[in-house]
């Protein structure tokens, strides 16, 4: 991926992350709001339950006040009534009857201080004020939050005035222990887990009535409930949701939603990029294909052109070959006639002078024939029209043929030359060569040897050579004048002959050896020249034709 592509990807990822973050932020706020509302509802409901509970309990005690309507009740009557009441309502610490002088007269349970005979003045300003207000107004009053006289902690006391007609007969007081009371609410408590879900603090008129021990340390958001009025006193509750409440109302929808949104956006981006890239790649591939097609077409045209040119060349080569073959025939035939003519004249009954002239004419036409043959061969080589056709050939008749050629040439030359044939030991029965071309080379070598040798001998040697004994080596040795050291490298060059004097004497075009070497090369063979020892001009020359791999299936002549 390119650097630009990486940056694009990172940017898209960051954008998706930001969008997901914003979504989470908004949803998180809403979740908090929902949570707060839930806590508020719970707290408000709890407060109402508290207030109603107090009212229910106070209503339930009113019948005791009724004991004094007709006559004063006895201690036993009071105890019997109130004990039931206390048993029925846990959280009620004690119930007292206070006479019209505001002195405690009966106490249930009996061991609860303040005991009988204690004046209310001893119980503190709030209680005294509330009791006096109840006496004076004839209404139920409440002390507010006080430390209970028995030392059981914070609580509050309700005073219910008793009247017989217009006479004030005393007060019934009910002491609530705040801690027990709030725990033991009787009515309408449809949330039994409230104590676990919230840590609370209850106040009367702003002064503490009760607080859970962990309220001050709670870090979670504080909920302040609505207020409720109890006989002129304001009841208020603050609450902290506890971890258990938070856990029970856990809501991970914002996280899920944000994550989902971010992932979907990013996935969408990736999909879009993939499609985009796919289109781009397709377009690029199309362009590449079009280019390729163009190149292909151009190539096909070129191939066509070349094929046509090749065919034309082949045709022209074939034409050249045909032309040269025909020319060979066309030249040989009239030449044959000329030579025959000279021979006829030579044989006729004519003066010696004319006979010599005819003989000279014959010799010249022979030279002309050799020269033309050479020129035609060179042309054929240069035109590539000279082909090598290898075949399995019997070696023995072939060697006999070469020997006969050698004999014929020597006899025709009229020179006093000895002829030798040397055959190697392991000559195969057949060899795989182009017999015609090899014969052409051997004939040429023999012809050369005879021409450049005045006296002595010509030797034709045939044997197998090479590391695997798979090469056929044909040597033509003579005892002629040899080739001087400084001229040796030019032996196989075209139109070269030893020197002009010799050339005139031997009458050749100087093409023979170069043609032989070219043909040998065409056959993959070597044609080399070496002097016989000692290396002196006059010690003769040896030409060696080495044909490689002439007999793939090895076998001896005797097979």
């Amino acid at each position, binding site marked *: 991926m390119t650097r630009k592509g990486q940056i694009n990807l990172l940017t898209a990822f960051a954008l998706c992350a930001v969008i997901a973050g914003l979504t989470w932020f908004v949803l998180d706020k809403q979740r908090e709001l929902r949570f707060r509302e839930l806590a508020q509802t719970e707290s408000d409901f709890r407060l109402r339950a508290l207030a109603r509970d107090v009212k229910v309990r106070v209503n339930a005690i009113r019948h005791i006040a009724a004991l004094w309507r007709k006559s004063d009740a006895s201690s036993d009557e009071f105890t019997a009534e109130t004990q039931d009441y206390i048993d029925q309502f846990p959280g009620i610490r004690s119930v007292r009857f206070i006479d019209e002088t505001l002195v405690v007269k009966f106490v249930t349970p009996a061991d609860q201080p303040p005991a009988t005979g204690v004046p209310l003045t001893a119980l503190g300003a709030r209680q005294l004020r509330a009791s006096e207000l109840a006496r004076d107004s004839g209404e139920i009053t409440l002390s507010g939050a006080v430390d209970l006289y028995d030392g059981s902690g914070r609580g509050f006391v309700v005073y219910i005035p008793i009247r017989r007609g217009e006479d004030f007969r005393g007060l019934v007081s009910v002491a609530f222990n705040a801690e027990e009371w709030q725990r033991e609410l009787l009515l309408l408590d449809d949330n039994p887990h409230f104590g676990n879900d919230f840590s609370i603090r209850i106040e009367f008129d702003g002064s503490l009535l009760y607080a859970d021990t962990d309220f001050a340390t709670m870090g979670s958001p504080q909920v302040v409930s609505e207020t409720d009025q109890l006989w002129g006193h304001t009841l208020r509750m603050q609450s902290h949701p506890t971890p258990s409440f938070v856990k029970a109302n856990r809501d991970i929808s914002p996280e899920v939603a944000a994550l989902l949104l971010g992932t979907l956006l990013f996935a969408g981006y990736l999909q879009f990029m993939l499609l985009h890239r796919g289109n781009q790649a397709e377009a690029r591939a199309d362009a590449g294909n079009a280019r390729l097609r163009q190149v292909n077409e151009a190539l096909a045209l070129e191939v066509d052109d070349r094929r046509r040119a090749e065919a034309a060349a082949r045709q022209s080569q074939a034409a050249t070959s045909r032309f040269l*073959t*025909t020319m*060979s*025939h*066309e*030249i*040989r*035939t*009239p*030449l*044959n*006639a000329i*030579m*025959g*003519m000279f*021979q*006829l004249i030579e*044989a006729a009954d004519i003066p010696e002078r004319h006979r010599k002239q005819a003989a000279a004419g014959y010799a010249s*036409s*022979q030279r002309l*024939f050799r020269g033309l043959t050479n020129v035609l061969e060179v042309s054929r080589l240069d035109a590539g029209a000279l082909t090598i056709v290898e075949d399995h050939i019997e070696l023995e008749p072939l060697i006999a043929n070469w020997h006969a050629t050698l004999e014929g040439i020597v006899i025709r030359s009229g020179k006093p030359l000895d002829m030798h044939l040397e055959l190697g030991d392991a000559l195969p029965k057949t060899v795989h060569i182009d*017999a*015609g071309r090899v*014969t*052409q080379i051997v004939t040429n070598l023999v012809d050369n040897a005879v021409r450049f040798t005045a006296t002595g001998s010509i030797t034709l040697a045939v044997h197998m050579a090479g590391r695997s004994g798979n090469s056929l080596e044909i040597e033509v040795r003579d005892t002629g004048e040899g080739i001087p050291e400084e001229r040796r490298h030019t032996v196989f060059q075209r139109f070269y002959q030893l020197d002009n004097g010799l050339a005139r004497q031997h009458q050749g075009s100087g093409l023979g050896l170069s043609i032989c070497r070219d043909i040998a090369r065409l056959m993959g063979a070597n044609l080399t020249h070496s002097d016989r020892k000692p290396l002196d001009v006059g010690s003769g020359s040896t030409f060696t034709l080495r044909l490689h791999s002439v007999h793939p299936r090895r076998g001896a002549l005797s097979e």
Partner: protein
Amino acid sequence: MKILIVEDDHVLCDVFATSLRDAGHEVHKAFDINSAIDRLRGRGYGLVILDYYLPDGISLPVAEYTCVACPDARIILLTGSGVFPNGEASILAPCVDWMLRKPVPLEDLHALVDYAALDAESRPS
């Protein structure tokens, strides 16, 4: 011996004919395939000297016809081309007995003709 020379070059044909006539043979000449076949009919030649290339084609059909028309005739194929440099004509054209490459020296031709005459005499027919 009765000899038919089939050679399109009139001069060469004359040279061969003169030379062979001087040697005592009865020589007839033909310059193309058609005239050669005409002449071959019922003449009883002992030898046919046949040029390979003739104006109306390659002369091998003449050789084949000779085998039929004059079964006793020997055939010398003359060629100036390099088509049969190594005597393959004897395989490709079974009727051909010998092959000489142009230019043919007269002494070579005489030698071969004499050999053919000897060969014909030694045969029982």
